[in-house]
């Protein structure tokens, strides 16, 4: 099946995708993408949602289990207060209303679901009606963010594709069973794979910021399902498919794009989309039918009789709200105001995502230029994490030397590299040890004059307007100065001498 159209060529058999540059209003073959994300996030509680077993990833299988976790006869759930608090933090950070809520049973059989039902919130979730603002300002609606318990983890041995069907036997680890989850159900406001990536990235940062989760997609502590449909502009919503098994932000964009194109190909061929759940296969880059709507389980939801309604009082809600830390968006705005750089520009996005914005501000507080601090931290602190080992005052000292003309930008980078490698250091001493001395203007001017005399041909070309010639001149001057000349000062001098 092949589908071509202005700039888009899509060959399903070869799985090649070419995208025409778009102007932000994402269109595929004249279709709009309509996407809503359901994100499951494991809460960073000490214990499970309904029992006292530890909530820990990566330990020996079946070491964090108890009668409740295993769904043993007679065991009863008791709600974890900290899980409720973390769920409220998520809701409040996503601008939701926190409301009285209840738990239901979602009934279905699966070997890693020990009670054969999942305790989840159904028609009365704890958080409703919020939104998440993308860095560019677009708001994506959040329908709800509710509490539920995780299942155990199955490993199917033998057979094909790690599926239960056809396997020789299966192993189950119940360490994950009963781990608290919040499912964040986004509204179908996402209109491009890029927005989906931004949504998940931003959401991840919010979850980490409020201490609700480590939100690692690779470890499964954050899982994302995408509901995807397409339509011609102005038409009613199309039939949607739910994409599961998306394990990274990058895959999310690919999976959504693949699925949208698959649907468009079908529609263009005059076929109908079947509402179904599809499985993203990372290796072949496609989605495959998992089950159709007709095969969907009837979950027979009913109110969980072993739990009582959850009614957080207003004082508790207020306290949680008051204790919320600064969220990524506020952090970007703060840094933007301090530096003049755009809030959704690369430097601020990267530094805030790494959690290094407080550090940048601290360097500013130590008397250095914050904009320089932002650039240096973005460039040199990729491995440093949220709490850099380099004392803010050390970086500040280096920046003060640089902006004061005592270090060229090249020298500054060299000094900084050494400071970072040593986890701190005195910039003055390092510069001295390296023989970095600021070259005064008269010495520089002498070198410039010497080079102009030596490179007469280049100089005349430069004066004639050939910009390329400037490169040769600057290079020669830098060489003659043994790298001590400041590039900006050199170009300024050349410009002045040209007259």
């Amino acid at each position, binding site marked *: 099946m092949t589908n071509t159209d202005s700039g888009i060529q899509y060959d399903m058999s070869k799985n090649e995708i070419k995208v025409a540059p778009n102007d932000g209003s994402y269109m595929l073959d004249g279709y709009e993408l309509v996407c809503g994300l359901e994100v499951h996030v494991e809460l960073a509680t000490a214990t499970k949602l309904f029992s006292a077993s530890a909530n820990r990833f990566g330990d020996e299988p079946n070491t964090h289990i108890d*009668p409740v976790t*295993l*769904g*043993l*006869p*007679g*065991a*009863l*759930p*008791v*709600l974890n207060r900290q899980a409720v608090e973390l769920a409220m933090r998520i809701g409040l950070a996503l601008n939701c209303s926190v409301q009285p809520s209840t738990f239901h*049973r979602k*009934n279905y*059989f699966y*070997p890693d679901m*020990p*009670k*054969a*039902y999942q305790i989840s919130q159904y028609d009365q979730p704890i958080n409703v009606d919020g939104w998440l603002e993308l860095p560019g300002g677009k708001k994506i609606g959040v329908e709800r963010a509710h509490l539920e318990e995780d299942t155990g983890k199955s490993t199917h041995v033998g057979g094909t594709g790690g599926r*239960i*069907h056809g396997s020789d036997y*299966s192993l*189950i680890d119940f360490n994950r069973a009963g781990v608290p989850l919040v499912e964040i159900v986004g509204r179908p406001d996402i209109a491009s794979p890029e927005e989906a990536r931004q949504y998940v990235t931003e959401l991840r940062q919010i979850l980490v910021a409020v201490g609700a989760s480590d939100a690692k997609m690779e470890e499964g502590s954050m899982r994302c399902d995408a509901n995807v449909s397409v339509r011609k502009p102005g038409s009613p919503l199309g039939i949607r498919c739910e994409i599961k098994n998306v394990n990274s932000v990058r895959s999310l964009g690919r999976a959504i794009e693949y699925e949208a194109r698959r649907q468009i190909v079908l529609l263009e061929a005059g076929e109908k989309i079947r509402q179904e759940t599809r499985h993203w296969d990372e290796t072949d880059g496609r989605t495959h039918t998992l089950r159709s709507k007709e095969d969907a389980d*009837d979950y*027979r*939801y*009913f109110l969980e*009789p*072993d*739990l*009582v309604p959850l009614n957080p009082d207003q004082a508790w809600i207020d306290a949680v709200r008051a204790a919320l830390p600064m969220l990524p968006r506020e952090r970007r705005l703060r840094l933007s105001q301090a530096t003049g750089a755009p809030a959704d520009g690369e430097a601020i996005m990267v530094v805030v995502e790494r959690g290094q914005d407080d550090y940048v501000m601290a360097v500013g507080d130590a008397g250095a230029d914050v904009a320089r601090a932002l650039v240096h931290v973005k460039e040199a602190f990729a491995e440093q994490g949220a709490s850099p080992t380099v004392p803010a005052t050390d970086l500040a000292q280096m920046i003060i030397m640089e902006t004061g003309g005592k270090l060229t930008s090249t020298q500054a980078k060299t000094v900084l590299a050494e400071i970072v490698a040593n986890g701190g250091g005195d910039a003055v001493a390092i510069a001295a040890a390296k023989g970095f001395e600021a070259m005064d203007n008269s010495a520089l001017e002498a070198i410039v004059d010497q080079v102009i005399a030596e490179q007469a041909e280049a100089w005349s070309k430069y004066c004639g307007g050939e910009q390329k010639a400037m490169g040769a001149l600057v290079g020669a001057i830098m060489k003659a100065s043994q790298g001590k000349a400041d590039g900006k000062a050199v170009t300024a001098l050349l410009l002045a001498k040209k007259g």
Partner: protein
Amino acid sequence: MRPLLKTDVSVFRRSLDWTAEMTTPTNIHSNIPTTAFAIADGVRSGTLKAVDVLEAHLAQIAAREGDIHAFNLVTADEARAAAARVDADVAAGRDPGVLAGVPIALKDNMCTRGIPTTCSSKILEGWRPPYDATVVQRLAAAGAVAIGKTNLDEFAMGSSTENSAFGVTYNPRDTSRVSGGSSGGSAAAVAAGFSPISIGSDTGGSIRQPAALCGVVGVKPTYGTVSRYGLVAYASSLDQMGPFSTDVRDSALVLEAISGHDPMDSTSIPQAPLSLLNVLSQGVEGLRVGRITDLPGGADPDVTARLEAAFDALKVAGATIVDVEMPSMKYALTAYYLIAPAEASSNLARYDGVRYGMRVNASDTNAMYSATRTAGFGEEVKRRIMLGTYALSAGYYDAYYGKALKVRRLISDDFARAYTKADVLLTPTSPIVAFPVGEKSDDPLAMYLCDIYTIPTNLAGHPAMSVPFGTGAHGLPVGVQILAPTLGEQVMFKVAASLERSMIATGGAK
């Protein structure tokens, strides 16, 4: 109002015969008291050895269990060890607790650490819980000596203990008849003198109805009074555990020991244990006892005669009889048989052969589920799972489960109105006396009707208890049911104690 005196005479003559039979200590060594209260008193004061008390009861089991089959398992070795510990405590000057040395039988649907817990179902074959139910812990902490696990209708679904995978429990009063159910084994154990106390569970009458049929006291406390942690769930919003005993005081004693908040059960009411022993002597003067004028019909005349006698006795004791209406009560049975199976269909889904109990291997997982559950569950359990699954299904939920929940609310409203006029209500416990084994086994609807008077209280979450009050047809025991509002255990026990006193006063020696 009927002529009081005349009724009383006939009533009390019959009850005298019955009481004499019930308390004749032929079944127990003459030096061992028959009540938990007296046993605990003797053991705590050092005049009685727990091991002797136990051996007397084990001897009684050896003598009659073959005819009755109250137990799925008698844990004699564990019991002997526990009794020895109680005696050691007393010898060391430590108080073993209010139930010191009292042999106690546990319905086989409450978890006992390391001891098989079967729910009288093949599907739990070989399963030994790794933990004790809260009630089991509390009984042990009070010095009670668990002697075994009693038979029940599979997963507590039934009214005759005929639905057990391990055979019928026969009524100690007449072994051709059923013991009632689902806690038939626990009721029979007390009635046969195997233990002065037993624990049952009551979802729609499963303590009260067998208590009535076996002629013992049986109490279903307010929902949330006794922790359900470790009780294998049948219908979670209705299940509640409670005691069987030979007299009212023993049930009060046990309830004081097992009630009170349990952080392991979210539906447990956050309150101190019940305080009941101190109200038993208070009398019923001035209390308003409600007669339900529109009580659904069907009770046998011998049973209603005993109910009338109970009204009369309470009137004599100073209570006022008032009329109340319960217009929604006639729908209770129908609502129950939607709500309870719906919850059961979910509660019993975990028996899938994956982690514990029976597994029948098959070609794939779904086939294994199906084969295991087909082989592991009995007919009545399968019937209720299917009923409940249907009632919750998409497209049927509103018409069945949803509507049943509305009826449940209406019944609660009826009770709330009735309790503005009356302090307690009085009804028969069972519409009939113990029936012959096999009589209703093939007629589920007839069996369901056994619980017509007990089910409404479960739906409302209220307390209710059955007290033996004379005999009916074939000289078989009849129970009168006392219903009270939420946490109305004290007034309920006052009335129960008064009824019991009225029997003793007319000749039935306790």
